[in-house]
């Protein structure tokens, strides 16, 4: 049932989904905004690299500067006024939003009546969406932990001294790509999927498709070893473990190749310690395991790769 | 919101245009309606309807009323008492029929006559057998017998009542507030006793006598529908009559036994 705009409007207009709609616009906007600055800096960098003489005298910012202008400005009033303005605008925004849209209040909690779909708060929908691809212990516990740890590890594995304190794309291609894939392509997109795409029964509904409570999907998800006809439990476990291992090796090697693509990246790679390299690769491989598993699940209907009596992957 | 605004504007426009039209119509209509209701009948132009009610065919034989249960009544009669359902004259005229104007008087209202119509219980029969009154006109019921009667009208549209009337008791005076043709009246003590009271909103009615003749006078000119009603045979077919000023017309009703 395509073209059900009423349904789309219903989902979008749920008060709690409004932030996600806002996210849909804000994140691309700021991505573009950041990249605009980055390209501005990149142009300057290119200019300065081409003209070393200029590099010596230039103030090295893409912003106008004249001698005689203060290098530092007083916070009061030059920063304060902007902060004040931002606070006022934000207040207005919040007020208007609060006046026009009421916070949701549904029926009193009823443990006997399961909501369908019952969804986590929107900012955790990424994790809930992950439940489709991984067992809860991975999606709900391991992955969030890895995300936090991974984020915290960033400053310690990024060996690139360039691009500290200014936007640039040219000097940090690898790290920017890695971050954007993680934040935009995985985290934000998963949230959007969880909000707009997942309907009753956590089934996949394209936008403008009616959320039909009666819909039934039939899909047999198999474990990887079953596809290969391995029946023995231990054999299967071994097979699964080796596939996982293989994935790590292949992905690690690819990562390695990726780090060696340009001369600059090789230089940075060179600067990294072994611990940094291992951490970086592990984290990125784990991050990539999500899209890998998603693809395996959505395209090949694979449920588990590794099956053990204690846990499954 | 927009739709609602638009609707409001349209509604205002519509209301304005309607009120503009409406004022004219009202001006024309107003005097017409109440005039009919209160206008007195002008005797100068009033017409008359006359006619007879006939029974087409032999009347069913009247039954003899046995009053053995009530010797005091039986004593008052020297001849056998017969039922009065069919009172037929020489020329086939049918008595005890109520002829009345059913339709054509519009919204006219009429004064209620103050003088009562008398219904007597004499010799354990109601005399007369059929009476007709106007709405709210008093009906005076007399007990001329040395026995107790009870008077029990069983109306459909009016209030029902049932009063006992011992000999020499005061006369019962009652009236009926709604039109009804006709209310059967009976006496529970003497099951054979029966009478009818026709109640009408206007004075244009007549109970026929043995000759079946009737005359309805003082009718303002107009188109009328007349109907005759008989206690056993029910209501006749309607007859339409147009009365011009001072005109007199004759019609005839025929009942088949």
């Amino acid at each position: 049932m395509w073209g059900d705009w009423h349904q789309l409007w219903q989902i979008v207009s749920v008060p709690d989904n409004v932030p996600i709609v806002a996210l849909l616009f804000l994140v691309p906007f700021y991505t573009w905004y950041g990249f605009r600055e980055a390209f501005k800096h990149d142009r300057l960098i290119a200019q300065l690299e081409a003209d070393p003489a200029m590099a010596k005298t230039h103030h090295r910012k893409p912003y106008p500067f004249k001698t005689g202008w203060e290098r530092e400005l007083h916070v009061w009033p030059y920063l304060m006024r902007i902060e004040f303005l931002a606070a006022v605008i934000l207040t207005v925004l919040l007020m208007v939003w609060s006046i026009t849209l009421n916070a949701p209040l549904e029926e009193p909690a009823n443990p006997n009546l399961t909501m369908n779909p019952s969804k986590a708060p929107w900012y955790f929908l990424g994790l809930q969406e992950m439940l489709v691809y991984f067992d809860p212990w991975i999606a709900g516990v391991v992955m969030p932990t890895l995300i936090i740890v991974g984020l915290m590890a960033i400053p310690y594995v990024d060996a690139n001294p360039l691009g500290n304190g200014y936007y640039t794309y040219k000097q940090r291609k690898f790290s920017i790509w890695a971050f954007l894939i993680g934040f935009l392509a995985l985290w934000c997109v998963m949230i959007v999927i969880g909000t707009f795409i997942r309907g009753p029964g956590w089934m996949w509904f394209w936008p403008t498709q009616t959320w039909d409570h009666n819909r039934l999907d039939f899909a047999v998800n198999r474990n990887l070893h079953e596809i290969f006809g391995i029946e023995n439990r231990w054999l299967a476990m071994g097979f699964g473990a080796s596939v996982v291992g293989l994935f790590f090796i292949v992905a690690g090697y690819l990562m390695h190749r990726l780090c060696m693509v340009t001369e600059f990246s090789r230089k940075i790679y060179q600067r990294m310690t072994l611990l940094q390299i291992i951490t970086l690769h592990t984290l990125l491989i784990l991050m990539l395991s999500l899209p890998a598993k998603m693809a395996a699940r959505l395209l090949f209907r694979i449920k588990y790769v590794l099956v053990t009596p204690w846990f499954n992957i | 919101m927009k739709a609602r605004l638009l609707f409001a504007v349209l509604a205002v426009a519509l209301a304005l245009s309607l009120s503009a039209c409406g004022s004219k119509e009202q001006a024309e209509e107003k005097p017409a309606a109440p005039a009919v209701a209160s206008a007195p009948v002008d005797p100068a132009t009033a017409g008359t309807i006359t006619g007879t009610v006939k029974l087409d065919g032999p009347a069913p034989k009247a039954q003899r009323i046995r009053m053995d249960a009530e010797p005091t009544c039986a004593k008052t009669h020297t001849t056998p008492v017969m039922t009065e359902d069919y009172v037929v004259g020489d020329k086939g005229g049918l008595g005890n029929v109520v002829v009345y104007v059913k339709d054509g008087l519009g919204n006219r209202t009429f004064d209620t006559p103050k003088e009562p119509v008398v219904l007597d219980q004499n010799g354990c029969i109601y005399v007369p057998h059929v009476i007709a009154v106007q709405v709210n006109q008093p009906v005076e019921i007399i007990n001329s017998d040395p026995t107790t009667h009870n008077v029990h009208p069983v109306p459909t549209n009016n209030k029902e009542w049932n009063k006992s009337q011992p000999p020499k008791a005061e006369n019962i005076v009652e009236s009926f507030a709604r039109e009804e043709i006709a209310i059967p009246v009976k006496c529970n003590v003497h099951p054979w006793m029966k009478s009818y009271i026709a109640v009408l909103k206007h004075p244009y009615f007549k109970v026929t006598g043995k000759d079946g003749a009737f005359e309805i006078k003082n009718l303002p000119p107009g188109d009328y529908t007349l109907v005759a009603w008989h206690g056993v045979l029910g209501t006749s077919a309607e007859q339409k009559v147009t009365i011009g000023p001072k005109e007199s017309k004759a019609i005839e009703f025929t009942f088949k036994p």
Partner: protein
Amino acid sequence: MPEIQNDDPIVAKSYSGPLLIASLLLVLSLFWALWQEFVGLRPWRGYQREFASVYSKFLGKELTKQKAAADAIMSSAEYQKLAKAAKDAADAAAPQVKKIDEETAYVNRRIAALSPTFITARGEVTALIYQVEIAGSESSKKSRQADVDKAKKGPFNVELPTAEGKTEKKSFNYDELIAEFDSLKNHKAELTLKRADVRKAADEAAKAQAAYIQEKLDGLSVEQVQSLQTAVRQMSVALRQINVDKAGLVDRCQSCHVGMDPKLVPPTLQLTKASLGLEKSKDAPFTSHPQPELLKLHDPEKFGCSPCHGGNGRATNSVVKGHGRHEFWLWPLYYKENTEAGCQTCHAADMFTYHAPVLNKGRELFRQKGCIGCHRYEGFDNEGEQLLSARQKVRQLEQQKKDAELEIPRLNKAGDQAPDNKAAQDYYAKADNLRVETSVMDAQIEQLMVRARSLLREEKKVGPSLKETRMKLRKEWIYYWLENTHTFRPDTKMPQFRFKPREPRAISAFIWQMAVPGPALPKQAPGNSAKGKELFESRGCLACHSIGEGNKKMGGTFAANLSRVGEKVNYDYLVRWIMNPRQRTRPYDPIARKDLGPEDYKQYGKDFVFDLDHSRSPDGKHELQVQQQTVMPNLRLTIAEARDIASYLAAQKHADAVYQPAEFMDDPKLVEQGRALVKNYGCAGCHEIATLEEEGRIGTELTTEGSKPIERLDFSLLTEHAKRGVLPDGKPNVRDGEKNAEWYDHKGFFERKLTNTAIFDQGRVVTQLKMPQPNVTPEDVTALTTFLLGSVDPQVPKDYLYKPADQRRDIQEGWWLVTKYNCMGCHQIAVGQPSDLQGLPIYQGENKFKLPPPLLSEGARVDPNWLARFLENPAMSKTDVNRNGVRNYLAVRMPTFSFSDGEIRKIVKFFQAIASQAQPYLPPRLEPLTPQERTMARDLFTHPAAPCLKCHATGQPAHDANASAPNFLLAPERLQPAWTARWLTDPSRISPGTAMPSGLFKQEGGRWVFSGPLPPSLQGYSKDHADLLVRYMFQITPEEQRMLLGRTPAGGKSGAK
């Protein structure tokens, strides 16, 4: 301001503009928030203002109207008379009053002149006396006393006005002053009393005058209207709420529905949209409560609004919110047509709820249409469940008894072998106790068996037993009926099942082959069809059954329409059925779970005899079902009459009806398939079917269906349709002018489903719904929806629920039975409830007296013990049964229902309760008649002016042919004296339209006196004549009556002379 580089864009850039705009926006948003808080979210303010304006306009009109009405009354002769009387009285009193008034004025002047001196003197003296009282020593006491005396001496000089208008100077000492003042006061009081005395007559006349207006004026008095006008003027625009802490209730409905405020709109005033001049307005919530009597029963200060009406009582920010019609609010306002659903919240245990006709209809339909066959509903039709639990209890007790009986010898033996006497005594005592306990168990079992027996009688099925099919029905007809239920009989209560092809064949074959084989019916001779018709119409069959098709249909709706009964039924069986519908071919043994035949009885050497008096199983161990489980009663007809009626009914058929031969009916292969289908469709819910007697209900329990989460109601493929207000046929759903109105709610579900039970299968390939299509009109659907909507898990405190323990419970229990057996088909039981017979042409007009008696005051009329006997055997005779026990002059017959004892008890209590009679009934002791009184009573009884025996039956066939009232001989044990006296004096008040005339007695000095000419013996009798007759009636004997008959002129002899 040094070194500011004006060309530095960052420094030079001014943020004043954006800041100004942002600040402005902030201020605007603040104002918006304020506006929202005080105006936007307070729509009731506007409503209240509008109400004040329209209501004061209304009151203005009302004032002129009432003024005119009051003026009209005042100009009436009667009022003028009263006014004149009042004026005359006032005039008569006037000179004296004037004199008194003048004197009072004079006294007042003197008091006024004296007062200042008096007050000062009293103040000074009392203050000095206080000083004396607190003085410490004797001496100081003395000196202060001297001060007091000095002060008391005065002198106090006063200028007093005299009667002539001059002044006189007077001098008093303290005591004189006091005395003078007191005497003036006393004089004044005397004058006041005297004045009242003089004016007494005038005041009373004035009061009578005022009272006259109050009596004659319809509606509010002018003063009342004026005070309302003041109230409206002073009305403040404020939130109005009912707050009941205990119930967690906050209802602010009155904030918009201002007309509900009793302070502004008294209950005597009915505000409607029309009376306020707002007929066309869709948004004028100002009408007052349309049923003020309901508010009297349910004080709004306790019950609020939302417990009955639903809605979100707390919300005041919008109409939708207030009415609770927003998403996630579980208790939306009931729509107008379903308002009475609210009653069911607390009145769920009722069988009949006063003031709720729609709800009652729904509840009644739920039973009548057989919904209870499949859907359990708490408190409805639970005889089966009770029977089961009684049987279980019996089994338990029997097991216990058996255990005890095994234990007793063991204990005795242990006692025998006990080491010492004490221990032995203990054992023996235990054994004895157990023996006693078993005897208690016996009594318990006995009672349970009686109960079971009763329950077996009480348990009825909605549809006829299918065990008798072979004897009763034409073979080919069954299949046709299943397929064309509603075509064959358009008003049948049997729903139309949606069978798949070939299913009806299997079902009918199963039913046919499972039917009991016999013993064969006796062959019946044909009867007289014309006479049968007359009997059918006059005996009262039409109270339940209807006959005739289309607009020729007449009769009740309780039972089947018999227009085509001749096409289906076997004549011999019909005769038996009419003779005694409860007669079974074979009794059912609920323990062995089979229908017993002669062979089962033979085993025990017994004859195959079973009826209500022989209801034990052949082994004598338990009760059998010996009756058909039908509510149809026995009309006590003769075999000839039964044949006549049967002949008449057998002729009721379509001449052109053709039935296909149905040889598959005997195909044994279809039986098992049929059984599965019959189970699947739940046929055994309404019909007795062999092998499926103990089948449970197949449908959902509906006791709290109205509060089932909406998600649990399966809208199936129509969910989105319902949410978007699209009807199943694709058209928009329109409600109150709103297009595409959402129907995703309980109401929408119930209504759609009842209108078309297959609706939620629409679009499905595999259909799942087996609920058949009931035979309901749109009004029925509304009534049933109302009933279901109200069937909720109540949200109110427990003590709000209507569970009366007093007579009101008897009424509710009685209603269950009264409706179960359709007593209202013949009798009027509730005020304003017509019986089905009343509407029949043969009972119109003067034939009204042929109707069965109304039973509104039956509980007060008759002795309950008599009533119980009568209900048990309405013929009042064991032998002469083809008649009515009381009103044998009526053609319509009070049938024998074979009530169980419990049912009789409940019905009797019901009639007592609706007549507010105390229970148990103790007959009052009547004063015996003196010989003179006896003579007087005889004279009165046979007086020509009081022809009692003309109408009342006497038992003499010749006389009774014309009788139209019961025999006096029944009175002593049947009637209650108090009621009889009331009846004699004004029967039409008890039973309007009765043949018994009113006005036989007249009130004279606090007693009733015969209103006709008095017989000589009664002249000078000073007691109540009606009471005399009652006492006489209550001791009348057959001999006495015969003697009276001799005296009465009707007898031909004149014994009195």
